[in-house]
Every structure is written in structure tokens, then in C-alpha cells.
């Protein structure tokens, strides 16, 4: 084809450089148009990402916000509660998610399509809708109760009380977070090295050994990415704890949201202070791990 013939030869002469990057030897750091192309998103982010975050810092303003936050007893308990929930949810989704990803990569067409389909259904429905589903499940005389009665896991007269309770939050949060855990791990498993597996098996390794010492280490990047993603998302979670948690189940997210809502005319310094700490913690965790593994990109949306 005449269109590609000339540049192919020219590229061969030049030593086959990447086409859009700047030519070596010109001293340019970026290809043509890079500055303009990046100016738009950078401008957008400066205005609508860095701007609001900076305002959080400003609103937390000096020490008054932090002093209020430290004096407020609900803040401390909210922080502890959020941390323990985040750790628990991450641990549970880690186990279930790894099993799920392993199952997807090791089953045949029909079952694998089913597993992937269910996962995508979960991913495509909004967090709100999924949480509403849990509220419906927990309704007194609702489906979950009915299911437990039918399967005789619960005596016929007993009722469940999971709405607005702490234990009720966990299944819903795991539900919401699971796709974020499965997708990176699955992506990492798909690029495993089959030769190492074959070698391990031929050397007589038992299945658990293969899993523990060959397969999972290869998927390590995906596992870390998934765990960090789920953990950071759990820290800032608002929707599910707010809808399913009781008045004493305050997390950092619901605390900030409620205080923000309550003082809609006035002083946001306390929620801003708490929020600032949360954001800083999340950003530090994210930027540190993003250097090692691509936390937010290691999945195929």
C-alpha cells in the first residue's frame, strides 16, 4: 500500500521510533500537540478536582476545625468503626474475590460465561440500586426472612432484624465491592505463565502448593490493586452505610455527609477537617501503591 510504504521505509532508516513521540535528537520532551491536548484535561481537573480539594483544606481552616473534630466524641469512634469495617470488607472480598477470579479462569465456557455475566450485572447496576436490593431483602417479613424460613435455617416464628444494624451492613458492602476486587485479580490471572504451572505440576507439586507458590504470586499485582482499591473505597463509603446502618453505625463518610447536610448554611469546618484527613489518607495510600501496581487501571471496565 502506498500510504504505508514510504513511512515504513523512513521509519526503518530512523530506527523504528514510536510514531507519535518526539523524534530522538530533537531535544523535545513531548510530541507535537501534547501541550494543547493535555491542557484541556489538566484545566478541567484543576478547576473541578484540585479546586474542591483545596477548598476542603481551606474550610478546615487553621486549627478550629481540627479542634472541634478532636473534641467531638463521635469522630473518634467513627474513625475506628470505619477502619474496622474497611479491613473486614477488604479481607472478605479478598477471599471471595480471589476464589471467584480463580474459578472464572479455570472453568469451561458455559459456567465461566455465567460467572462473568453475574459479575457484570453487579458492575452495571448502580450502587444505590444494589443497596436498595439489600434493604428489600432485609425487610421484616421480606424475602430473606422468607428464604430462611423455607430452608428451615430459621424457626418459623422468628424474625430477622438486620435493617439499620451493624451486621447488616457487611453483606451489602461486600456485594458492592466484590466486582472491584474480582476484575483486577482476574485480569492479572489471565496473564499467568502456563509454563510455570506445567513445570510445577510435573515436579509433583500438590494443588495447594501450586496455588500458594506459583499462581497467586503471579497475580500479586492484581491482588494488591484490588485490595487497595476496595480498602480506599470502603473508607469513603457513604451510600450503603447510610441506608443500611443504624443511628449508631456512623462511618467517616456518613459523618461528613450528615454534618454537611445539617449545617447547610453555616460552618463546615468540622466535617472539612475530618474529610481532609480522610482525603489525605486515601491519596497517600493511592499514590504510594499506584507506583507499584496500577490500582485504578488494572481492570477492563
Amino acid at each position, binding site marked *: 500500500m502506498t500510504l504505508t510504504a*514510504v513511512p*515504513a521505509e523512513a*521509519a526503518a532508516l530512523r530506527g523504528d521510533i514510536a510514531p*507519535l*513521540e*518526539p523524534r530522538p535528537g530533537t531535544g523535545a520532551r*513531548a*510530541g*507535537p*500537540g501534547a501541550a*494543547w*491536548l*493535555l491542557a484541556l*484535561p489538566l484545566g*478541567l*481537573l484543576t478547576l*473541578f478536582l484540585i*479546586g474542591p480539594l483545596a*477548598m*476542603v483544606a481551606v474550610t478546615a481552616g487553621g486549627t478550629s476545625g481540627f479542634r472541634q473534630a478532636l473534641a467531638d466524641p463521635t469522630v473518634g469512634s467513627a474513625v475506628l468503626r470505619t477502619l474496622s469495617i474497611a479491613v473486614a470488607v477488604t479481607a472478605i472480598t479478598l477471599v471471595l474475590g480471589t*476464589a471467584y477470579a480463580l474459578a472464572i*479462569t*479455570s472453568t469451561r465456557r458455559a*459456567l465461566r460465561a455465567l*460467572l462473568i455475566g*453475574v*459479575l457484570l*450485572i*453487579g458492575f452495571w*447496576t*448502580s*450502587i*444505590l440500586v*444494589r443497596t*436498595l*436490593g439489600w434493604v*428489600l431483602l432485609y*425487610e421484616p*417479613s*421480606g424475602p430473606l426472612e422468607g428464604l430462611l424460613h423455607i430452608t428451615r435455617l430459621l424457626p418459623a416464628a422468628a424474625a430477622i432484624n438486620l435493617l439499620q444494624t451493624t451486621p447488616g451492613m457487611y453483606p451489602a458492602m461486600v*456485594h458492592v465491592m466484590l466486582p472491584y476486587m474480582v476484575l483486577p485479580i482476574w485480569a492479572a490471572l489471565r496473564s499467568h505463565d*502456563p509454563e510455570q*504451572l506445567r513445570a*510445577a505440576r510435573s515436579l509433583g507439586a500438590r*494443588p495447594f502448593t*501450586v*496455588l500458594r507458590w*506459583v499462581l497467586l504470586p503471579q497475580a500479586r499485582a492484581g491482588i494488591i490493586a484490588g485490595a487497595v*482499591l476496595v480498602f480506599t473505597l470502603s473508607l*469513603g*463509603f457513604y451510600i450503603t452505610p447510610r441506608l443500611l446502618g443504624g443511628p449508631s453505625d456512623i462511618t467517616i463518610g456518613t459523618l461528613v*455527609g450528615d454534618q*454537611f447536610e445539617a449545617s447547610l448554611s453555616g460552618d463546615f469546618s468540622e466535617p472539612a477537617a475530618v*474529610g481532609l484527613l*480522610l482525603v489525605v489518607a486515601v491519596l497517600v495510600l*493511592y499514590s504510594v501503591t*499506584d507506583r507499584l501496581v496500577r*490500582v*485504578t487501571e488494572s481492570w477492563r*471496565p
Partner: protein
Amino acid sequence: MASADAPLGSALGALRRPLVVLAIVTALFLLLPVATILPASLSDGASLGFPPQGLSLRWYQAVLADPGWADAAARSLRVSAAGALVALVAGTSAALGLTRLRRGTRPLRTLFMAPVVLPGVVYVLGFYSALIRVGLARSEWTIAAGQATLAFPVVLVLTSAALGGIDPNIPQAARSLGARWWTVVLRVELPMVRRSLLAAFVVAFTLCFDELVVALFLAPPSGDTVPAHIWTSAQDALAPDIAAVAVLVILSAFILLGATSLLLRGRPELRARP
């Protein structure tokens, strides 16, 4: 990849069955809450119970006729379209820009992807404080701006992947023929990833449509989006009409995203030379 799964499956040996069983149980767990919404929406009675009292479509009729929901739906469509459009333009621009950098892509990507992990409630708090400071009111534009920021990373990932799959010789050819960078972008690169751009728009649209926190806290007094409306209605009591709305939202998302998936599965993009 199919051939590589046989060794994986058999390498797991005796562990395979328990893992698959656990995965199936997890899949049921994932389906359960979504599955209860549908029967709840078809309940004939005014309250939710199990088993549902009779089957009827009255709640769907009620919702579709209700001006409150219609207004919320219209607002959602407007705001999501605007937000998705902004996210598309900014995200594609970022993806194109990143292909032209030799170094420094890593820290930029970290910055660009940051909205994904950001806690929404803190973000809206800052956004609102900024609005107060500059004297602006909350409006549909503020919702769109916040949602565009949240959808931007997704667009970036999708368009980056698409741009990475085009034959690099073609834009190179255009460049060596004397085309300026904007010509290369507008008349060579973007047309080659048309379908992915559409898909990115649809995904961003769905994201914005379903988004709750920004829509809730940055909503104008004149009305809210569908998720925000669901939220405020659900605070009082969870009635079957909310379930009906939820089913409608799920269905439209599926149709939209499913159609886009099929679209992408069609003609393969121009691939890079082996």
C-alpha cells in the same frame, strides 16, 4: 487464552471444585438483592412483603405517569449527557496527549485516575464551599461538572486502550506527509477509534446517570436527578414504586450497555502491525 486455562484448571486439581462451588455461591449472593427488586416492583399491595401480594403493573403505570419522576428523568438525561460529553472530550484529549509523551506519563496518569478513589462526600463538601466562595449557586451545571470529573478516568482508560490498538504507521504516515497535529488527531486518529469513543460516551453516561452523591448534594432547589429522587423517597418508606423505578433504571442501563458491547464486538479495530 483458552489453551492456557486447561493447565490452570488441572493444576488446581482437587482445589478446583471447592473454588468453583464458592464462586457459584458468591454469584448467587451477587444476584440475590438485584433479583428481589423485580418481584417487589410487581407487588399489587402498597407495602413490600414476601411473598408479594398479587402481581400487577400498577406501580410502573404510576411511576410513568408521575410528573415528579418524569421531571427527575428529564433532568437526569440532560445532566448525564452534558457530564458524559465533557468527560468524553477531556478524557480523549488526555489519552491523546499521553500517547505523545515520552516520559512523565506515570505521574500524570496517577493524577488523572485519582477521582476514582476520592471519597464523594468530601469532594462535594469542597465543591460546595468553593461555590459559596465564588458566589455561585448549585445548578444542573454543577452536578454535570462534578459528575464529569468522576467519569473522566473511565473515559481515559477506554480511549487509551482503543488508541493503543491502532496501527501506529498510519498516523505516522499522516505526520510525515506534513499533517499538523490537529489534523492527525481529527482526521486520522479519532476516526479510527470511533466505536470506542461511542462506547466511552455510553459508559460515562451510565456512570453519570447512576451517580448519587454529587447529584444529591450539588442539586439545585428546582429538582433532582433520578437517583437523588430515589434516595429521598427511600428515606421515608420503601414502597414498590421505588422498586419499579429501580427496575426501569436497571433495564435501561442493560439495554444501553449491552448494545454498546455488541457494537464493539463487531468489526475489529485496525490493529497494530505484528
